[in-house]
Structures are given as structure tokens and as C-alpha cells.
């Protein structure tokens, strides 16, 4: 291929720059800072685009580094030929790659061509940017080279085939990553961790192997405990049987005791009945009749008291006889007496009123006299009238005399006349009224006096009548009237009449009670005689005692009856013959001993049951542990298998890594010889000396024999390193591009060579110009 020309719109410091290129060596000589390296970079960027796109630093990020200093369109175009065809690459650059434009035109038709994409560098040179920069493009101070996967692929002639040598580094990286990731020796390796898990599980499984033994031991213990429990349960059953047997005997014994007790009671009750019966020599009385008798006896006692109470004393008997005589005409009527006494009381009252009326009459007579005298006296109003008349007369005289004029005199006389008239009127009215008032008072007093005289007369008549009645009444019972004591006499008469009646009643009551008493006594005596009971007159006591005896007897009979009934029931419910023949069962233990032993065995059973429960709980806990242990066992098996398989896989990965490296070395070893031949050719061309002391290995590393061994060329001077790098690049390019040769872009590669080597390099450049187009940048 060949670069024909280029045009730079703006790229770094270059702007509106055009350059044509010829075949062979195109030497561009300029001072520092004139844009040589920028032009070299422009050519590379037109094919490969920018390097260091992701870098922040401007020096490393080419897009930033070559931003136009003066602004304007960032980019340019480059015309090149490839075989028979000529193309124009046109690129512009933005702030980022997405803003970039790329266009390829066929120079002969000026039509857009799709012969290459924007990855035109890789498509044209068959290597990536890195490999290009390690071969046909020598950047400033970057002569030293090494091979890349791309270079190796190109050298091996397999780039167009599978390009897999290009993947070697990545493939090896993947395998080595896996080796690290799964390493059994690194602490982060999965196999290392797995081995740790397996060790831990083995320990747990080993430690847990005793769990099953513990469970078995525990089960044996539980079995023993159950047997012991069963044994003690049997003992308890046996004891329970004995207890039941003895208990039954005790029960029967208790029944027998009860039977004996009932029989005894029955006999005692019968004896009691007999004792109680003695109280009744005849028939046993009927309780109801006896109760009636007892009630009558109570009444009889009361009657006796009444008889005693109503018996008349001698004095009373005499009195009664006297009263009989006195009241022969009849017993004074109490009402009549009372009425009479009331009238006498009215009589006394009338007497008192009479005295008062008479006194009042005297007062009225005095008042009448006084009124009559007053009637004759001039009343005060008439006196005033007369005074006025006098004043009028005096005034009239005075007016006539004293008034200077007639008019005034007439006025005076007139006024006097008026006063005179008033005086006359007042006098007349006063006299008339006084007379009228006095007459009215006299009339009233006389009327009142008439009434009083009538009442006094009426009272006197009434009192005389009452006295007459009293006299007649007292006279009926042989008593004289004493006006002073008439009321007391009447009351005394009345008292005597009352006593007479009382004595008569008492006598009558006594007679009735005595009769009733005799009647009861006859009845009692008859009843008691029927019962063959001898009694005094204290029937209450007799019947009370009889009643108590009868109650006691009845109760005794009732008790005897109940006792007999109980005995009968018991005999009905129980086998009396068996009870009579009851015998103590033969046993070496008493019931108390059995109970004691039973309590002991029950306690033991509870203890064993508790132990079994504890053992069962322990068993459950151990079973859980065993389950976990068994899970651990399963996990151990799984993880051991995983570990085994993992280690096997790890070994295989290591082998894969090892043999992949060997395969790569084997391939590169195949072109070591032609590469060394090419290197030697160029080296000798520059230095004029053979390159015998240089060696190249399968990884394309050049070593040099120095001081008895192969040394790395990095130990040589910079000039030699550049020389070796340059020669190796040419050898690699020869090996990589057998037909179409790339353009060599050389940015001052010989700057470090000494003069002798520089001459050799110039000769080499002349030689190379026959086969390569070169664009050689150097300082003036």
C-alpha cells in the first residue's frame, strides 16, 4: 500500500496542512515543535482512530491531546492506494467518538466505498492498533517492540484462519483466573474453602458418632426402666389385690358391727318401752283425749281461781243484805241520777249567773241615771254655736262702730251676720243631736235592763224546780234534801247503787264458777278412774305428768319401731348368716402394712415414670442431634464428592493452562528461525556485524549473549535497544506481510544511535525504500 497525500483541516497545531507523499522514503525534516509527531499521529489516527479514549490526562487521551489549537473542524483526509485501488479516508472528530464521522471514497469514482469500515486500520493491516504500533508505526521514543497475539497470528499466517492465537492471552487469563478461583491452597480458593468445610464436617461426623451409641444406651436404659416399672406395677397390683381383700373383710366386719349395734339398739328400745309403760296402770291413754283433758284441767284451775275470787266476804254479805233492803223500791236509775246531778250543776251555775245579772242590773240603773242627767246638760257644740253668735254680735257692733265707712261697716255687718248664722246653725244642730243620742242610750239601757230582769226571774224558777226534783228523788230512798250537799248525796246514792250491783254480780259469778268446777271435777275423776290413776285435785299437774309420760312412751315406742325397722332392713340387705360366720382372712400383712407398702411402691413407680420421661426427653434431644448428624453425614458425602471432583477438575484446568501455553510456544517456535534470520539481516545491515550473539525465543523475546549467559536486551544501551527494536520490527513486518507491504511511519527512530550506527541506518533506509514506502520524521 501507499499513502498518496493528506490534508489536515485541524489537528493539534496543524491547520490547513497538505502533504503529498511519494514512493520510497519521504523524509520530513523540521525543527522541534513543528508538528512532525502530530502528522505521524494524524496518519495513524486516520487508520485506527484515537488511542487512550478513556484516559483523563490530556497527554494520554489523544482526542484531547490533538484538539485543534485554533479551533475549527477537527480532522482531515488521507488518500492511499491498496493494490490497484485508491481510496480517500475522511474523518472528523467531535468531543466523543459518537460524534466522529468517517467516510471512505473510491478516489477514481469519488463514490463512497464500503470496501473498509471505520476499523480500516485493522482491516487493512490485519492487526489491531497496538500491534500496528509495535510494527509499522514507530512513535516518538518508542522503537523497542515485542510481539502481541495479533503479531503472532500474522507471523503464523493464521490470522485469516481462526485468529485463535489472538485469543491466547485471554484464554490463558481465563484458565489462570479459574485456577486462582478454585485454588485448594489460596485462602480465597473455592477448593480451599470446600476442604475447610469437609474438615469441619469430618470433625462433626467423627464427634457425632457417639450420638447413636448414646441413643442405644438410652434406649437400653429406657427398656430397663420400663421393665422395672412393669415389675413395680405388678407388685402394686398384687398389693392392691391384698388391700382389696382385706378391705372387703374390713367392710364385712364393719357390717357385722353395724348388725350387732342395730340388734343391741333394738333390744334397748324395747326395754325402754316397757319402762315407760309402767306409768300407765290401766290402758295407755289416747294422746288427743289426754291433751283435751289437760286443756280442760288448765281451764279448771282458772275456774277454781274464779270461785275463790268471787267468794263474798262477811262484810260484803252484810252490805248486800242492807242494800237489798235499801233498794227495795228499785235500784236508782243511774241516768236519772246523773241527769239530776247535771241539773244541780246547772242550778249552781244559774245561781252564779243570777248574782252577776243582778250586779249588772245595778250598773245599768246607774248608767240610766247618768244618761238622763246628761240629757239635761248643754252640749259642747251648742256652746260653740252660741260663742259664734256672741262673736257675730260683737263683730256687728264693732263694725258699726269702728268701721270708717259704711261700706266697710256693711261688710263687717255682713260678715258678722254670716258668723251669726253659722253660730245659730251649730247651736241648733248640737242641741238636736245631743238630745237624740241621749234618748237612744236610754232606750238601749232600758232594753238591756229588761232582759236582765227576765233572766233573773227565769233562773229563780228553774232552781226551785230542780230542788223540788232532788227532794222527791232523795226522799224515795229515805234521804232528806240538804241544798248544800244535795249533789254529794246523790253521788253517794249512786255509789251505793253501784256497789250493790257489783256485789250482786260477784255473788252470781261465784255461783256459776262453783257449778262449772264441780262439773269438771266429776269429768276428771271419771277419766282418771278409767285409767286407774289416783290423783289429788291438782288435775293440771296430774294431766301434765300423764302427758309427759305418754309422750315419753310414744317416743320410746317410735324409737323401738325405727330400730326394729332398721334391723329388718339390714337383715334384708345382708347375708346375716355370712356375717355371723365372718372370719379374718389369712395374710402375713395388715392393712396398714399393705397401705404403707403400696405408698412406697407407688412412689417408686412415680419415680421410675419420671425417669422414663426424662430419658424420653433426652432421647428426643439426642434424636434431633442424630438427625443433624445424619444430615452432616450426607453433607460430608456430597462435599467430599464435590471436593474430589473439584480437585480433579482443578488438575484438568491446570493441565489445560499448561498445555495451552505449550501449544502457543510451539506455534511461535515455528517462526523463530525466519524471524531471527530477518533480524540478523537488518542488524548486520546497520552495524555491519553479524548478529550471532542474539537469540529469539518462542515468545519473541530477544536475548543477547553477554558475560557467559543470555541477557535481556533491556540491559543494553538505549541506542542498542532502539536498534534491536527497529530490526525486530522490520523482521516482524517481513514475516507478517509477505505480499502487500504497509507504509512505515518512523518518528525519529534513530535519535539514540551513534554516528556509526546512524550511517548504517541510513544505508538500511535506502535499502528499505526499494520495498517500502516510508514516512520518516527527523529533526534538522
Amino acid at each position, binding site marked *: 500500500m501507499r499513502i498518496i497525500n493528506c490534508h489536515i483541516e485541524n489537528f493539534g497545531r496543524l491547520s490547513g496542512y497538505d502533504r503529498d507523499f511519494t514512493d520510497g522514503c519521504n523524509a520530513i525534516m523540521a525543527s522541534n515543535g513543528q508538528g512532525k509527531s502530530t502528522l505521524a499521529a494524524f496518519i495513524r489516527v486516520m487508520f485506527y482512530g484515537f488511542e487512550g479514549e478513556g484516559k483523563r490526562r490530556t497527554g494520554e487521551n489523544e482526542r484531547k491531546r490533538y484538539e485543534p489549537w485554533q479551533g475549527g473542524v477537527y480532522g482531515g483526509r488521507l488518500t492511499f492506494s491498496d493494490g490497484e485501488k485508491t481510496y480517500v479516508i475522511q474523518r472528523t472528530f467531535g468531543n466523543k467518538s459518537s460524534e466522529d464521522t468517517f467516510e471512505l471514497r473510491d478516489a477514481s469514482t469519488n463514490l463512497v466505498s464500503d470496501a473498509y469500515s471505520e476499523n480500516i486500520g485493522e482491516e487493512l493491516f490485519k492487526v489491531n492498533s497496538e500491534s500496528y504500533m509495535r510494527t509499522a508505526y514507530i512513535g516518538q521514543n518508542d522503537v523497542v517492540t515485542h510481539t502481541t497475539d495479533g503479531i503472532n497470528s500474522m507471523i*503464523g*499466517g*493464521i490470522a485469516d*484462519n*481462526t485468529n*485463535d*492465537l489472538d*485469543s*491466547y492471552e*485471554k*484464554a*490463558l487469563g*481465563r*484458565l489462570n483466573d*479459574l485456577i486462582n478461583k478454585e485454588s485448594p491452597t489460596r485462602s480465597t480458593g473455592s477448593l480451599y474453602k470446600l476442604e475447610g468445610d469437609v474438615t469441619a464436617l469430618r470433625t462433626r461426623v467423627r464427634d457425632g458418632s457417639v450420638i*447413636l451409641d448414646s*441413643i*442405644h444406651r438410652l*434406649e437400653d436404659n*429406657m*427398656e430397663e426402666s*420400663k421393665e422395672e416399672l412393669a415389675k413395680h406395677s405388678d407388685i402394686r397390683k398384687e398389693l392392691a389385690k391384698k388391700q382389696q381383700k382385706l378391705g372387703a373383710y374390713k367392710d364385712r366386719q364393719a357390717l357385722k358391727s353395724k348388725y350387732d349395734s342395730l340388734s343391741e339398739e333394738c333390744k334397748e328400745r324395747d326395754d325402754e318401752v316397757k319402762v315407760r309403760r309402767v306409768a300407765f296402770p290401766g290402758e295407755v291413754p289416747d294422746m288427743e283425749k289426754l291433751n283435751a283433758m289437760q286443756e280442760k284441767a288448765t281451764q279448771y284451775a282458772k275456774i277454781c281461781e274464779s270461785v275463790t275470787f268471787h267468794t263474798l266476804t262477811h262484810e260484803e254479805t252484810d252490805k248486800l243484805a242492807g242494800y237489798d233492803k235499801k233498794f227495795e223500791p228499785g235500784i236508782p236509775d243511774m241516768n236519772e241520777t246523773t241527769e239530776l246531778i247535771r241539773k244541780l250543776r246547772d242550778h249552781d251555775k244559774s245561781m252564779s249567773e243570777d248574782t252577776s245579772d243582778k250586779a249588772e242590773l245595778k250598773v245599768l240603773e246607774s248608767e240610766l241615771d247618768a244618761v238622763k242627767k246628761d240629757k239635761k246638760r248643754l252640749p259642747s257644740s251648742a256652746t260653740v254655736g252660741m260663742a259664734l253668735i256672741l262673736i257675730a254680735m260683737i263683730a256687728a257692733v264693732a263694725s258699726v262702730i269702728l268701721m270708717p265707712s259704711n261700706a266697710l261697716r256693711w261688710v263687717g255687718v255682713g260678715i258678722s251676720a254670716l258668723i251669726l248664722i253659722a253660730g245659730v246653725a251649730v247651736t241648733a244642730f248640737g242641741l238636736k243631736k245631743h238630745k237624740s243620742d241621749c234618748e237612744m242610750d236610754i232606750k238601749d239601757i232600758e232594753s238591756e235592763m229588761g232582759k236582765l230582769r227576765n233572766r233573773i226571774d227565769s233562773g229563780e224558777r228553774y232552781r226551785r224546780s230542780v230542788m223540788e226534783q232532788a227532794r222527791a228523788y232523795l226522799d224515795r230512798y229515805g234521804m232528806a234534801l240538804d241544798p248544800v250537799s244535795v249533789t254529794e248525796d246523790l253521788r253517794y246514792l249512786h255509789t251505793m247503787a253501784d256497789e250493790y250491783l257489783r256485789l250482786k254480780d260477784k255473788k252470781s259469778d261465784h255461783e256459776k264458777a262453783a257449778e262449772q268446777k264441780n262439773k269438771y271435777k266429776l269429768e276428771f275423776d271419771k277419766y282418771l278412774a278409767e285409767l286407774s290413776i289416783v290423783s289429788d285435785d291438782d288435775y293440771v299437774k296430774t294431766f301434765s305428768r300423764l302427758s309427759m309420760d305418754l309422750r315419753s312412751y310414744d317416743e320410746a315406742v317410735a324409737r323401738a319401731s325405727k330400730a326394729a325397722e332398721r334391723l329388718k332392713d339390714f337383715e334384708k340387705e345382708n347375708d346375716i348368716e355370712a356375717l355371723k360366720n365372718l372370719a379374718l382372712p389369712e395374710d402375713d400383712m395388715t392393712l396398714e402394712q399393705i397401705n404403707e407398702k403400696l405408698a412406697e411402691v407407688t412412689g417408686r413407680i412415680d419415680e421410675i415414670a419420671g425417669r422414663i420421661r426424662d430419658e*424420653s426427653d433426652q*432421647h*428426643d434431644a*439426642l*434424636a434431633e442431634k*442424630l*438427625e443433624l448428624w*445424619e*444430615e452432616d453425614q*450426607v453433607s460430608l458425602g456430597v462435599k467430599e464428592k464435590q471436593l474430589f471432583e473439584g480437585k*480433579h*477438575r482443578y*488438575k*484438568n*484446568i491446570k*493441565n*489445560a493452562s499448561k*498445555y*495451552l501455553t*505449550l*501449544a*502457543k510456544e*510451539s*506455534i511461535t517456535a515455528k517462526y523463530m528461525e525466519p524471524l531471527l534470520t530477518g533480524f540478523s539481516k537488518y542488524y548486520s545491515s546497520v552495524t555491519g556485524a553479524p548478529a550471532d550473539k542474539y537469540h529469539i525465543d518462542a515468545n519473541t523475546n530477544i536475548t543477547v549473549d553477554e558475560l557467559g549467559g543470555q541477557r535481556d536486551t533491556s540491559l543494553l544501551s538505549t541506542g542498542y535497544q532502539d536498534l534491536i527494536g527497529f530490526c525486530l520490527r522490520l523482521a516482524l513486518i517481513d514475516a507478517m506481510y509477505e505480499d502487500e507491504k504497509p507504509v512505515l511511519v518512523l518518528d525519529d527512530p534513530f535519535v539514540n544511535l551513534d554516528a556509526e550506527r546512524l550511517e548504517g541506518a541510513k544505508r538500511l533506509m535506502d535499502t528499505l525504500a526499494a520495498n517500502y514506502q516510508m514516512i520518516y520524521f527527523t529533526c534538522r
Partner: protein
Amino acid sequence: MRIIHCADLHLDSKMTSNLDRMRAKERKAELLGTFCRMVDYAKMHDVSAILIAGDMFDTGSISALTRNTVRDTITANKDIDFYYLKGNHDRDSFLSSLEEVPDNLKFFDEGWTSYPMNNDASVILTATELSAKNNNLCYNALVLDPKPVNIVMLHGQEVETGTRDKAEIIALRELKNKNIDYLALGHIHSYKQKPLDGRGVYCYPGCLEGRGFDETGEHGFVLIDIDPIGHKVDTSFVPFASRRLYEVNTDVTGCMTSAEIADKITEEISGQDIDSRSLVKIVLKGQLDIEAEKDTDYLTKRFEDNYYFVKVEDETGYIVDYADYALDASLKGEYVRMIEAASDISELDKPEVIRMGLMAIAGEQI
């Protein structure tokens, strides 16, 4: 008369070999639940007895839940007699845990024990726990009256002839012509019924629930209808497991990607009518090209939503045709040739090492 013959319930089995802890616990509960459901079935179908022919429990260590549930289920169903013969997994722990053995729970020891199963003793159940001590002697000691229907219950592996000192061995030849009508066995985890002799049959009901992928297929119990008068014994297998396990073998030879493998699996599964409650183990078989891409995690994820549990097991091998790489000038070709020639890698490992290298070169996940 109707009875149920079941065996190998393996209650309290850990179930952790395939399942995570949560699902293992769930399956463990399902095992217990299936036992209870079977008893409910018995109650609803006039079953008068349930024969448990060994391995009722998985280990001697029985959880409180299982112990109490079994005990309460037995005591709550007094009309059903439970005949429990201990198997090689059982210990005395269940019976010894009972404070009082329920009347309807019958058990056996190392001597022959007979129980009349109905009132007129026309059906007799006889059983013994086999041990190394009694195994060779017990056959001669078994003498059965020919008149009743005779059921004999044993737990062990059937063999034609006896093997000395092996506890779990049942010598079928020794049990022939012993007047056995039905030989109720336990130990083998899949259903099997065959003639014993001219009179009777022997039968393994298999386990009640499949637990691992070695117990695929239908599981349940055997329902036995006995006519003592007609001296007739009819049996039928009742599938009863709450879930079923499947092993789906898929030949993925020729597949180059996980997607192609998934298609093959789908094709294989679709032909088997698998219920979504099932546990499925997909076994990849066949030979894959060394450069084929295969991701078992992806395949597990791809199918696990369709079933209760899915496990993908990879039994595929890789084919390396070294001739394909003989003239390959690339790194890959050189790598394969170098592995082929390597003496420090076993022939078995070479395909895997090659595959790893090639996947690394291809940028694939290894």
C-alpha cells in the same frame, strides 16, 4: 374379609440425599401423611387388618411427631388390627416408647407367632422376625394347618435357596408346600407378586412412597380380599404414593448447545406423561462433541418450574476426533495435538482438558 399388606414405609427417612432441607422435611411429612391416608382408606373400605411387613421406620431413632402420629392413628382406629413385623431398619424404639401397647397393635418376635384374623379362626396370620440366629431353623419350625387361609409374613430378600447366617434372606424354596396361601413380604421396594407353589403366592408390595431415584415407578400397597369359606385370596395393587419419581434418560449425542439438549429432554419427557407433582431426574447420556456447549445448571433451571423437583445428572462423554485437528495450524489445533501426545494426562481426562482449553480459547464459560 379385607386386609391391606404394606411394607417399607421408612417413616422418618431423612430424604436429604436429593432434596434441600426444606423439601426434605416436606417429603418426610408426606411419608407420614401417606401412612395416615392409607389407614383412612382402610377405614373407608372396610379393611379389618393392616399388615406392615417390616421397615415401618427408617431408623431406630423415631421423632416424637412420627411416634405420636403412628400411635394415635392406631389407637384411633380400634376396628382395624395392625400387625407390625419389625424389619432390618426397625428397632424396638417404637414399641418401647409406648407406655401401653394398644389392643389393636399386634407384634412378633423371633419365634413363629400366629394370630387368628377373624372370629372363627378361618384366616390365620403367622410371622416371625428373621435373624441370623433363626434364619436357617425357622423354616422347619413352621407348621401350618391346611384348613384355614394361611398368611405368612416375613421381611427379607427373596432367594431360591437359603444362605447361612444372613438375617434378611428368605429362602422361598423352604416355604413351598407349607400350606401358605399368601406370603406377605417386605424389604424389596418395588411391587412384585409371583406364585409360591401350587397353593399360594408371594408378594412384595414395595415401599408406600418412593424416596430416591432408585425407587421410581408406582408405589402403594396390596389390597387382599379373602373368602375363608371359598378359600379364595384375591389381591390387587393400589397405587397410593403422593408423588412419583421418574428417571428420564436422554441421549444427547450430536447436540452442540444447551438449547439442543433441552429440546431433546423435552422430547423425551413429553413421551412419559409426567405429573407436575413428580420428582424428576434427567440423566444426560451419549457422546458430545468436544466443542459442544452444555450447561447443566441452565438445564435444571429450564425444567425445575415444571415439576416438584428436578435434578440433571450428566453422564455424557466427549468425543475427540484427533484427526480433525491433525492439520489445524491454529493454536487450537496445536493444543489438541499436544494434549493427545501428553503422557501426564490420563486418556479419560484428555477430552475434559481439551474441552477446557478450547472453551477458554472460545471465550466460553468453563
